[in-house]
């Protein structure tokens, strides 16, 4: 996590959503960021990730409710709908290279989770 003082991030760019402590380990939560449903995940090693909550296969806003785990070294969430797996870091679908969901920058500052801009697709 980048250590940056909170005043460095304008509310427009980095939106605080909750405290890390409120996130269950290896379980998602949904947050409303810039008007959109975003899935926030806290992994075993206390990394925090954010993806768009919308499952592009099922076309439903559900990703935060999936099971979190690893495939090889890749942290992923399995969509609760039909179990498609998405890389938590990039949003790329591990079962279908042509599909991905947006991934967002995340910072934890003084225990608060901040969600930033959508990561560039190269991530």
């Amino acid at each position, binding site marked *: 996590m980048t250590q940056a003082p909170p005043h460095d991030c304008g509310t427009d760019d980095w939106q605080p959503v*909750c405290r890390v402590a409120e996130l269950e380990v290896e379980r998602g939560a949904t947050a409303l960021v810039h008007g959109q449903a975003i899935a926030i995940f806290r992994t075993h090693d206390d990394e925090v990730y954010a993806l768009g909550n919308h499952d592009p296969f099922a076309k439903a806003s559900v990703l935060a409710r999936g099971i979190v785990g690893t495939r090889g070294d890749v942290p992923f969430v399995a969509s609760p709908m039909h179990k498609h797996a998405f890389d938590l870091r990039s949003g790329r679908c591990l079962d279908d290279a042509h599909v991905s969901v947006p991934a967002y920058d995340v910072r934890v500052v003084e225990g608060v989770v901040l969600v930033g801009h959508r990561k560039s697709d190269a991530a």
Partner: protein
Amino acid sequence: MTHLSSNRRRKTLVVAGHGMVGHRFVQAAIERGLTETYDLVIVGEEPRPAYDRVSLTSFFSVESADELSLLREGRYDDPRVRLVLGTTVTGLDRDTRTVALSDGEVLAYDALVLATGAAPFVPPVEGRDLDGCFVYRTIEDLEAIRDASITATRGVVIGGGLLGLEAANALVQLGLETHVVEMAPRLMPVQLDDGAGSALVRHIEKLGVTVHAGAATRAITGDGRVEALQTADGEIGTDLVVFSAGIRPRDQLARESGLEVAERGGVLVDEQCRTSDDRVFAIGECAAPGGRMYGLVAPGYAMAEVVVDALLDGPGTFTGADMSTKLKLLGVDVASFGDAFASTDGALELVFADAVGGVYKKLVVTEDGSRLLGGILVGDASAYGVLRPMVASGIALPANPEELILPAARGGAATGPTAMPDEAQVCSCNDVTKGQILAAAEAEGTTRAGSTCGSCKPMVKTLIEDWFARQGKVVDKGLCEHFALTRQELFDLVAVHGYRRFDDLVEAHGRGRGCDVCKPAIASILASQFNGHVLAEETAPLQDTNDAYLANIQRNGTYSVVPRIPGGEITPEKLIVIGEVARDFGLYTKITGGQRIDLFGARMEELPAIWRRLVDAGFESGHAYGKSLRTVKSCVGSTWCRYGVQDSTSLAIQLELRYRGLRSPHKLKGGVSGCARECAEARAKDFGVIATEKGWNLYVGGNGGANPAHARLLAGDLDTDTLVRYLDRFLMYYVRTADRLQRTAAWIDSLDGGLDRVRAVVVDDSLGLSAELEEAMTRHVGSYFDEWKATVEDPDKLARFVSFVNAPDTPDPNISFGTERGQIRPEVAGEPVVLAATIPVGAP
């Protein structure tokens, strides 16, 4: 001019003996068209058609002797075959080519096949004619033993060979204090060496059988009835004696008619199984090809095929057979194959022995270590399926052959059945090769593999699974990339170590952080054993989607709500509550196929409020979301129905309440019908109960779905207490040993022995597990609580039920509904919906 004259004389073929081999001969004769030229007459001495003698011991656990029958219809489906039962062939006159039957009939033959089998050998000890002395060969023998066991408390088996131990097993099942007396210094002297023999003794003694090895029987004493057995070392008090000291070929007909017999008995035959008279053949245990008799069924089957071939002028020959054996004796795996005693020149032995675990494994390899010659396995014969064909096919051993028998070796090098050549024989009973099994898989056909002794089943399964895997279909033996263990192995690890957290399990026995396959499986195992709240802190992240919110997710991300309505019975007041809740929350309602009511379209954050209302009105979770008991469907039964003979509704309710909340490998459904009209469709359920005049019939292993299966009878005419006991055992046995997402029908099929196995464990308690299984169920019943009630009362658990952590009052804008027939229906948006930025968003 030649023409096919209709008066060309049809020939007659007589078969003496309708046992396993005689039956196989007739089957092959029909299949291969021998009945085009021959009329067949089969004369069998026993009162019933051929039956599965190999499974004779299961007679004690089957409903009726018919279940062992190899010819249930009682006749062959070919009018040119005549079956004469309960009749003995008493004489053979080779000059007139006739045989005489005990009922006076005389039959002329053009060809005669002797398939008279063998008889138990009873050594000439004093007292062998006393009442209470038995042999172990026919259904009648077993009936007699069973009848005698009613008044007996102790039994002795004379002979510690394969059959003797089988008989001892039967005596244990009949509840007798059991002794085995073997003259040789170890058990199964023909198949096992000393190390293996003593490993076997340890196992068997643990089961309460006393083994007296190196003890010669001197006499059986008693006043009219058996009272004791005298050995060189002393006296064993007993009420019955079973002789199992070997068998002798039944070759009298051959002897009396001057046919050549082998020195040690058996009708001497050549490679085509022809006796010294070329119109007479002998097959099975009465025959001695090359002077040697074979006391197993597979060589007999091979001989049957050879004779059909000979009569069709085919080239088949019988030149000896694999005498490998694998069996489960009193629950102990024992296998012996190939050159088990290292009698080949220069052969080397590799031995692994674990005295504590009672495991003994020996491999016999060639001098240069390149090929496997044979081996012995006791206590763990799981490698048998792979090893035996390696002997037969002669494929090269891996560099470290000991890995094949070391306990840690999992999968290992290229040793699996997959590495075997296509010609390798997989099923020795029915001579089916690997190539034939794969060809059948390809053509969606079947082979006979696995249908006789069943010992090849695990390997057939591996081959088929591998074949499917290569077709791109997923088959997991290990659970997933995180655990190279099966569900059952994990279940046992949890039971032994008492793990309660996924993290401990994955650290000790797995790798990585788990996934959507292993996490729910382990959650289910933990729930089955400890029955904690599925949303407790340690287990909540493991739960499958539906369990995670205690509701079923729908296509638009909303949920359905299914309150339990046990047996489908509901009061008008409760119906009204359901109606009110549905109306107040705007839910779509539908009667389900499971006799209850489903309320659809609840947003996740509405679930607690909906359930609070339902819980207050006395409803509880229906577990429609869980791999757990769903419903026990009922009919109205004797209370209302003019045909009903028992109160099926009350029983259905009782069962649904008893098993509610039981987490299991897959969902479980039950049904209870009040009479044979079966209005509750009980036989389409995992467990189905159908009322009889005397009580209840219990059926297991039914389901609907993509592969429908009818439940099959486990036990009949049970009183309610016994029914519940059997069900407790059945369900817990399933919960313990099934694979993940394996319903009861598939699970039963996957067991060695199938339904018989289940019956042995559940009804006859062959593994001595009943008390433990019942206790596990009692624990479950005692620890049941309504998980929705517990959830609405626990703020920590409720915290999860919010739309957005930072905007709990804003519903997810992605969810929307249309209407249809006056109720809501989900509408699916193609793209994520963005809320106008004016919506206030709370900060933490």
